[in-house]
């Protein structure tokens, strides 16, 4: 009898303890539930990120929506107008885009501890968004058509390269719009640079992918394009070469931010922390991007942030003038 009683008591205690343990664990992290992640990263990369995140937080069910930055933002804006934004966490191309969301009061303030390891200029001082990687825009050169690799952006303006230049349109590509803003505000370049490019009768494409294609298939010799797609194509064996010009390169940082009206703040914050953490950054480098966190090395073929000379401009000024810049570009190249 007593044995059975004892056993019963034991079971009861264990059950209670187990129950308590679960409840306590749940309260401590309370990271679970649904998380809507909108991003412009390629699908496969987003997938890897989420499965790594889920190893730490298995109870969070992350749903991804992936498209070009412009489409992601259009979708968010349309959702806002239609009633409520579905996204919890947003990760898209550049800080100017985030600046616009910040001005519309669509972002939640969150100062992640992990952000301390990230260069100050890539973190929003108000804690609305933080850069997650480094993507520079550099030169892509067709290695079959060009024997001597250029070292300067003047490769695009030299009379020799007339008819051989390709670049993405800032009217369609967010990264190209950012580059336009930075280069035209830089003493070394200014609008004069774009006027000289224009004199070479460049081909203007919709996106960066088209630039790479035009150079890879030999239609053009020189292009202006984001670095990582060139490094990947080069590694696969395409006849292209990535060149970081000596003057420096404009850099976008694919910032991450939490939406103001998120239903799941704990999960959103845990996700941001993970992306910025040592492990998250090593994953980014493994996938093929230049990481943004100090002390994590860049993948083969790409420079780390310390090795790059970065061309910069005031984010706020870029945000204020983006429409005007685009218009001016349109007028210059529309002539």
């Amino acid at each position, binding site marked *: 009898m007593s044995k059975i009683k004892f056993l019963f008591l034991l079971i009861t205690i264990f059950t209670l303890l187990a129950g308590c343990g679960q409840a306590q664990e749940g309260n401590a992290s309370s990271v679970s539930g649904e998380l809507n992640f909108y991003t412009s990263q390629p699908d496969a990369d987003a997938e890897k990120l989420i499965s790594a995140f889920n190893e730490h937080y298995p109870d969070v069910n992350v749903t991804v929506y992936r498209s070009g930055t412009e489409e992601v933002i259009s979708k968010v804006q349309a959702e806002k107008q239609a009633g409520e934004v579905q996204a919890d966490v947003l990760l898209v191309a550049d800080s100017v885009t985030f600046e616009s969301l910040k001005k519309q009061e669509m972002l939640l303030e969150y100062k992640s501890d992990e952000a301390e390891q990230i260069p100050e200029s890539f973190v929003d001082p108000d804690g609305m968004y933080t850069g997650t990687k480094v993507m520079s825009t550099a030169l892509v050169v067709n290695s079959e058509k060009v024997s001597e690799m250029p070292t300067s952006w003047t490769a695009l303006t030299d009379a020799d390269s007339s008819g051989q230049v390709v670049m993405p349109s800032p009217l369609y590509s967010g990264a190209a719009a950012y580059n336009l803003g930075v280069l035209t505000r830089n003493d070394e370049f200014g609008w004069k640079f774009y006027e000289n490019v224009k004199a070479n009768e460049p081909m203007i494409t919709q996106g960066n*992918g088209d630039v790479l294609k035009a150079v890879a298939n030999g239609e053009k010799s020189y292009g202006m394009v984001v670095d990582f797609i060139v490094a990947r194509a080069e590694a*696969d064996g395409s006849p292209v070469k990535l060149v970081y010009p000596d003057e420096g390169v404009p850099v976008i940082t694919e910032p991450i931010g939490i939406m103001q009206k998120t239903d799941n703040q704990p999960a959103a914050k845990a996700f941001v922390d993970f992306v910025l953490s040592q492990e998250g950054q090593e994953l980014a480098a493994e996938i093929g991007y230049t990481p943004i966190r100090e002390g994590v090395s860049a993948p083969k073929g790409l420079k780390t942030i310390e090795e790059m000379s970065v061309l910069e401009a005031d984010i706020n000024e870029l945000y204020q003038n983006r429409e005007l810049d685009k218009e001016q570009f349109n007028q210059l190249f529309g002539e």
Partner: protein
Amino acid sequence: MANHNHREVMPNQALRSLFSYKNMIKILAILAICAIFLLPIYRLIMLSFTSDGNLTFLNYTTILQDAATWQVVQNTVLVVAGSTVVSLIIGVSLAWLVAYTDIRAKRVMQIFIVLPFVIPSYITTLAWTQFLGTDGLYMKLASLPPFSVEPIDLYSLAGIIFVLGFSHYPLVYLLTVSVFRKIPRELELASRASGAKRSTTFRKVNMPLALPGIVSGGFLAFLANLDNFGIPAFLGIPAQINVLSTYIYQQVVGFGPSAFSRAATFSVLLGIVALIGTAIQWLFLRKSKRLETTIEDKQPRYFLGKRKWLVELIIWVLFFVTGVVPLISMGMTSLITAYGVDFTLQTISLENYQFILNTSSKAKEALGNSAMLAGVTAAVGIVIGTAIAYLRVRKPNFLSKFTEVSIGLPYALPGTVMALSMIFAWMEPVPGWNPGIYGSIMILFIAYITRFLILQVRGSITAVMQVDLSMEEAAHVSGAKGWSKWRKILLPLLIPGVLTGAFLVFLSALTELTVSSLLWSSNSETIGVVIFGFEQAGYTTYTTAFSSLIVLLIILGFIILYVSQSYWNRKVGKRT
């Protein structure tokens, strides 16, 4: 009962027998049409009159005063009119040749004719630019003859017009060829016997009778040319040529706070262009005549004799440049290990296909999703689209015309705009109430039906117009009523035409890109979304491998459809 009255009463009876609570169905149908087709358009129009939350004409006044707008409208009209004419000329000529002459290998030709419609348009344009580029095959050929051959610049208005026209002629062909076949040769013979020349016979007999098909196909080509984004984007942006579809996209991605309103305003302008097109096709169709017999006659009527090889050569050259060159280019890219390397024995492998079929689970899921979406959309289209087409032909009143216009508009709107207005319309159909349609796969079903129903309606209208009312009356007089009339008379006669429409719906839904890329969520990826994803990540080799696979599957499906269609025709032919 006077014959006149009888003709008016008939359609009602035909439908009453199908649906017993006719009026209830009618009201429900009107409500459904309003909700599905007009709600998004209504939201869009409202948006175009909104600025900073206020109702205003401001968007219109600023946009209409901008000289750039008129340049864009002018480009759009030129491009759409030009490419539609190109589509009509090629589509009608091919349909005539296949239907009436003794050229060989018609079955195989059918497959090549559909190819340009199946291959994604960015692949087509890429192939064309490679073919005509400075290092391309064309310039190599051009350097051979002693005289100089001008290089062709595709990055121009003419380039856009031709590539669009070549991509959309299958729409005209498919809706025209069976109509040509159904025109009784006795009519032609009678005309010839009365002394009319071949050209006169064609103009006075074949053309008026074939008009429903030609106009339907031309109208679809017109809408497709108006909406197309890929071709004018790829060829127009480098040349600074904007048309409405690319300009609207540019406005949307510019995303200032006023961008949606501006984009909506441009969409309304685009809608007006589409309405003008609708008015033109209505003017044409007003004079069209109906046929009394409806059996497809596949025996050749004209023997080309010594010129046959020349005609065949021209056709195969056309197929070669519009279908085979892009396809070969796509296939070659799908086999190389890295984009841009030369195509040699050392560089080819099947690893891209292996990735698509084995490594990436997304591709397989997307195939399943898209096949299901396309199948359901086509099935819904067959029932609803044919019912609408039947009403439109037999009861051409204001309501049925209005319905047709409402259904046509979503097909003409650029995909981006259409998708955005779907978000506005379906996230909270009634303000404050979110039924969860947006964010689930339901939104894709609704979007596809909204967008592609017009293809079925046009296909079915062409089919219904070929059935003379006297056929129904005869059935009626002989005592066949209700369902048995549909089953024994109408359906067998309609099915080939209805299937053509369903085939177009299925194909379009299967490879749909823009709408799904904005509306999908992570468990409802479609083929288009996956292809777009690979392409944006710079994996052109995966894109082309997946596209090649789709094209192969579609060709397979087309062969199956073709075989079953001819089997059906034989069966119907035997019965009558």
